[in-house]
């Protein structure tokens, strides 16, 4: 990490949009450039609550960008003598493709071959703090400008170094393929120039990132980690070889949060390979030489559990409480006609393929952690606390993750591993079982929604949406603190995030949206697209119902009532490409949905076949407008994955709470989509670049979920109200 006192500012502040960036030459033998982000007045003034629909003016991504800028942090780009370009990624790679997208931005602005760019995941850095968190679809959105500023500055210095070496004007030189080229065809690799470039203080060509002429950004590009994945070389936390790390599993209560009253480990301790049995706050940990031994010994434990704080609480109780807590509508219906609808969404586990896991080695004066985390500094603080160490004594290595969908902003697995490691004085590799993950992991909370629209003479006069849910735990990744710092923490962080994320994209007259929270001692979490996955899905189903009541076609209605051309464009695109309105057999139908958030927007059209007991989405068409697509192939992947989330959560996948215990234990009963319930074809259309990158990872979930529900409604002639439908 560069020493801030040894930095030499080499260019003045530069305004880009609302943010400005200072680049620094780091005192190093080879070219190393750092960007410090500075908060401008313009950004500060943008974060002002608006009395109505603040998400129209400022959203969570803006909060994260401001927070990133407010921290004095440094992102560093290095060019090594062996001609490698190295950018330590201050984010998690959990499948969303961020390493590929960021490597492309570096390669583009440096004119380096993509294959020459290394993008290791950065260890936890306290100086970055929450700016190192991954979430809210903010990674490309917040890092685009700083990274390209860095890369363009590095390129300018390399060109200048070559000009000095060859004694020619810098302006006569060009760059491509990780090298500087003279008009005569002479070339020098960046690696050969890096030592000289490190001495260049004043670049003699523009150090500013280009605005046009992109050769890589915007080109469909395969993932940089794909070769490792298809050969089995990609390492996840439990694949990392840490000498002496002992397999560990934890026996957990049948019901959520029930404490250990007493336990008898006599039989377990006597079993082969067992090293230790340790009580931790979440249960009884068993450490052995192999996971097989640990699992068998866990089964031999005799544990008496206390009463769960949610003992006796089932779905029906929570649904009733959520319904009772719904805030009243603000407006009387007056003389207009109206449409009313209520919706319920079940709990949904994140269920990433890789279960909760961490490798932790707690020693007397220091600790080392290997974990897939979207909150490295959160893990660092939490493990320090568990181990009784200073935060600075904890090293957190961020490892690629096997999916997240919001799960990996929380630090529970590494904290458990630290508790065990500290207790037994040995490094441990701790794994949650699939049952652990399903029943004691985190959930998208159950929610209830009441919506009312009034209309008269062809206009929608008012639109009101009231949502109630079990509170989302916003402690992961510093999200809650960021919301508080931005002034949205009242009355709760949850309502603040709701204000920052929920906006109605339609001209529906007077619009009011409100959230009520009903606390239960359950483990919830930010699930891909957070409130929007339910709230905007409900809203898009409502839009279809309003259209029907007013005698409109759902697509025509959206095109008429949407506020912006950009949103009309994605609806139009899927309607055209998906052949909206084509004649279909009874029991089959099309449906559409739209979502706008993260500075982006997406439309989705699906076709569904409801003629068998298991309805199947047979076709998906999505149009995605993210302002500036960096990697269309990655965007397509995110859109397709989001479609599967929409299909799964609307049709099949949810979690039942039975008297304090979650019922589903694995993918055998948590019915996430499989090949036989996935569409046979899925087309994704990436809309042309119009500006700066918006968010992409969560964008399509509400559009897809709504399209599936709307298609189901049209195919069956029903009004779907409770999701998942097959539950």
């Amino acid at each position, binding site marked *: 990490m560069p020493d801030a006192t040894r930095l030499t500012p080499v260019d003045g502040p530069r305004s880009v949009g609302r943010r400005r960036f200072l680049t620094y030459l780091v005192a190093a033998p080879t070219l190393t450039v750092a960007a410090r982000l500075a908060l401008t007045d313009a950004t500060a003034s943008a974060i002002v609550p608006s009395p109505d629909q603040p998400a129209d003016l400022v959203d969570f991504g803006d909060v994260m960008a401001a927070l990133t800028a407010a921290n004095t942090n440094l992102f560093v780009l290095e060019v090594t003598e062996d001609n490698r370009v190295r950018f330590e990624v201050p984010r998690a790679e959990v499948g969303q493709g961020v390493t590929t997208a960021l490597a492309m931005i570096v390669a583009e602005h440096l004119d380096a071959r993509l294959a020459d760019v290394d993008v290791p995941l950065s260890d936890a850095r306290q100086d970055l703090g929450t700016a190192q968190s991954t979430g809210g679809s903010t990674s490309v959105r917040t890092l685009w400008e700083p990274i390209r500023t860095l890369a363009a500055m590095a390129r300018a210095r390399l060109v200048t170094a070559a000009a000095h070496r060859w004694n020619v004007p810098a302006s006569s030189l060009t760059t491509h393929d990780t090298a500087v080229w003279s008009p005569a065809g002479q070339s020098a690799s960046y690696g050969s120039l890096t030592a000289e470039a490190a001495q260049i203080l004043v670049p003699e060509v523009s150090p500013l990132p280009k605005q046009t002429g992109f050769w890589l950004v915007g080109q469909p590009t395969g993932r940089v980690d794909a070769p490792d994945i298809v050969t089995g070389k990609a390492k996840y936390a439990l694949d990392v070889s840490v000498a002496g790390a002992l397999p560990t599993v934890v026996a957990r209560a049948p019901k959520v949060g029930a404490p250990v009253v007493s336990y008898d480990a006599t039989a377990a301790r006597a079993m082969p390979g067992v090293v230790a049995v340790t009580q931790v706050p979440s249960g009884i940990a068993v450490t052995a030489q192999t996971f097989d031994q640990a699992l068998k010994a866990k089964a031999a434990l005799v544990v008496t559990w206390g009463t769960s704080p949610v003992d006796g609480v089932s779905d029906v109780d929570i649904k009733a409480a959520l319904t009772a807590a719904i805030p009243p509508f603000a407006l009387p219906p007056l003389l207009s006609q109206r449409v009313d609808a209520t919706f319920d969404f079940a709990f949904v586990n994140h*269920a990433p393929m*890789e279960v909760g896991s961490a490798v932790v080695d707690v020693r007397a004066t220091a600790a080392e952690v290997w974990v897939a985390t979207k909150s490295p500094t959160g893990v660092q603080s939490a493990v320090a606390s568990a181990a009784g160490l200073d935060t600075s004594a904890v090293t957190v290595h961020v490892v690629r993750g096997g999916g997240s969908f919001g799960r990996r902003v929380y630090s529970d697995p590494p904290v458990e591993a630290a508790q065990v490691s500290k207790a037994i004085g040995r490094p441990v590799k701790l794994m949650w079982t*699939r049952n652990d993950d399903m029943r004691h992991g985190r959930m998208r909370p159950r929610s209830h929604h009441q919506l009312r629209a009034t209309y008269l003479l062809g206009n929608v006069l008012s639109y009101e949406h009231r949502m109630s849910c079990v509170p989302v735990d916003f402690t992961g990744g510093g999200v809650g603190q960021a919301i508080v710092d931005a002034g949205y923490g009242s009355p709760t962080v949850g309502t603040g995030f709701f204000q920052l994320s929920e906006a109605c994209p339609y001209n529906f007259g007077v619009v009011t949206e409100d959230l009520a929270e009903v606390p239960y001692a359950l483990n919830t979490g930010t699930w891909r697209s957070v409130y929007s996955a339910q709230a905007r899905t409900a809203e898009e189903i409502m839009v279809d119902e309003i259209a029907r009541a007013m005698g409109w076609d759902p697509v025509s209605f959206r095109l008429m009532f949407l506020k912006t051309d950009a949103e009309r464009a994605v609806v139009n695109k899927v309607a055209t490409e998906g052949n909206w309105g084509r004649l279909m057999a009874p029991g089959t139908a099309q449906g559409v949905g739209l979502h706008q958030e993260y500075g982006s927007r997406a439309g989705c059209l699906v076709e569904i076949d409801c003629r068998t007991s298991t309805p199947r989405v047979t076709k998906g068409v999505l149009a995605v407008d993210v302002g500036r697509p960096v990697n269309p192939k990655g965007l397509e992947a995110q859109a397709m994955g989001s479609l*599967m989330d929409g299909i799964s959560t609307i049709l099949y996948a949810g979690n039942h709470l039975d008297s304090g215990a979650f019922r589903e234990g694995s993918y055998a009963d948590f019915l*996430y989509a*499989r*090949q036989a319930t996935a569409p046979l074809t899925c087309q994704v259309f990436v809309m042309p670049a119009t500006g700066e990158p918006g968010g992409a990872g969560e964008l399509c979930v509400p559009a897809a979920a709504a399209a599936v529900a709307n298609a189901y409604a049209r195919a069956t002639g029903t009004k779907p109200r409770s999701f998942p439908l097959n539950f």
Partner: protein
Amino acid sequence: MPTYTFNLNGKAVSVDAPADMPLLWVLRDKLGVTGPKYGCGVGVCRACTSHINGQAAQICTVAVSDVAGKNVTTIEGLAKGSTLHPVQQAWLDEDVAQCGFCQPGQIMQAAALLKTNHSPTDADIDKIVNVCRCGTYCRIRKAIKRAAASM
């Protein structure tokens, strides 16, 4: 503890292990072969799918005693040296993977299918029940068809 010998990715290996130890943990905890993943431990998610005598198997539910003398191939042994198996190449060409955790199992399942079915239909592909939580199913389908065409 009994000793079991089997062929792993073309090489004979011997391990001391209890007879009922699942092959997944033998590979991961005793032999350091980490390509096959734990996803559920009960043969449902199929992230551990590997080949036993050329056939796809969920090795989290296969006892080591049952593979004695047999050929076990994991994702690490699918390529021939530096030449990728056509299924692996198709996975690259279609850019299938997202998080990648299930993909060793998906690839091994597809490779086993294509051994006996050179031109799988959509209905054949629908019978694959390996879970991909990132939802890469459409690309998996295209990649299987691409690999079939290239073989």
